C-alpha cells in the first residue's frame, strides 16, 4: 500500500514531507453517494452526455490533467448550468464545481487535480431543464519512487 511505503521511508529519514496524508473515511463509497446526492438534491442521476477525460494510469497523483465535456446545445433554452467533479478516496469528496450558462458556447472545462490513491471519479452536469447527467472514470495512481528531504 502506497501510504505504508512512504511511512516506512519517512521513518528512516525522520521526515514525511510531501506526502498527502490519506485520512480515508470509514465508508468512502457511501460518502461519494452522499456527495452526489447533495449536488443532485435527490434528482435522478443519468449516465451519458458527459465525458470525463482522464488518464487511466497516472504516474504522479499530484498533478493529473482532466477534461469534462458535456454535450449540450448551450442555448438560452437548453444549456449546462453547472459541472461538478467528485472523487472516491481523497480526504474530501469535492474536487471542483463550475458554473456555466448559455454564454459559454461550449461546455468544456479542463483543470489539473490531485489524486491521493487509485479510485473512481464522477463528473456530473446539471442542465437548465433540471436533469442531471454523469460519467465516471476509474484511475490507477502510482507514486514516485523516492521520498525527499527539502
Amino acid at each position, binding site marked *: 500500500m502506497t501510504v505504508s511505503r512512504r511511512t516506512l521511508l519517512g521513518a528512516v529519514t525522520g*521526515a*514525511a*514531507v*510531501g*506526502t*498527502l*496524508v490519506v*485520512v480515508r473515511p470509514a465508508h468512502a463509497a457511501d460518502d461519494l453517494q452522499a456527495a452526489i446526492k447533495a449536488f443532485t438534491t435527490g434528482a435522478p442521476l443519468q449516465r451519458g452526455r458527459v465525458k470525463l477525460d482522464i488518464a487511466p494510469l497516472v504516474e504522479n497523483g*499530484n*498533478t*493529473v490533467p482532466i477534461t469534462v465535456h458535456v454535450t449540450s446545445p448551450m442555448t438560452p433554452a437548453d444549456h449546462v448550468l453547472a459541472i461538478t467533479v467528485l*472523487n472516491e478516496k*481523497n*480526504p*474530501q469528496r*469535492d*474536487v*471542483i*464545481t*463550475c*458554473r*456555466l*450558462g448559455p*454564454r*459559454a*458556447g*461550449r461546455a*468544456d*472545462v*479542463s*483543470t*489539473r*487535480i*490531485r*489524486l491521493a490513491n487509485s479510485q473512481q471519479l464522477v463528473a456530473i452536469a446539471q442542465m437548465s431543464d433540471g436533469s442531471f447527467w454523469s460519467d465516471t472514470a476509474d484511475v490507477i495512481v502510482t507514486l514516485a519512487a523516492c521520498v525527499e528531504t*527539502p
Partner: protein
Amino acid sequence: MARALITMPATAKRGEIVEIRTLIAHPMETGYRAGDDGQLLPRNILRRFSCRYDGEQVFSAELFPAVAANPYLTFCTIATVSGTLEFTWEGDRGFAQTERVALTVAA
C-alpha cells in the same frame, strides 16, 4: 500579487467560441499534509475563480484542495462585443487578484 498567465485570442469574430486558458501561481496547500515536525500544515487554497465579460459573469468555479498547485483552468465563452475580460481569483488568507485582458470582436 501572484504570477498569472492567461492565454486567449486577442481578436475573435462575433459569435465565435473562444477558449480561455488560465494559470496562476499558488501552492494550494491542502490542509491534509504534515510538515517536518509532524504537524498538519494549515489549509491555504484558492477557493473561487470567476470571469466577467460584457457586464456579467460568464464562468465561475469553486476550487477545493483537490485542485493541483498552480491551478490551471480552461473554459469557453462566446465573443459578443469588444471589451475587457476580468479574471478574479479569491482564496484563503484574504487572497484576491484580478487580471484583465482585452478582446477585440469583429463583426
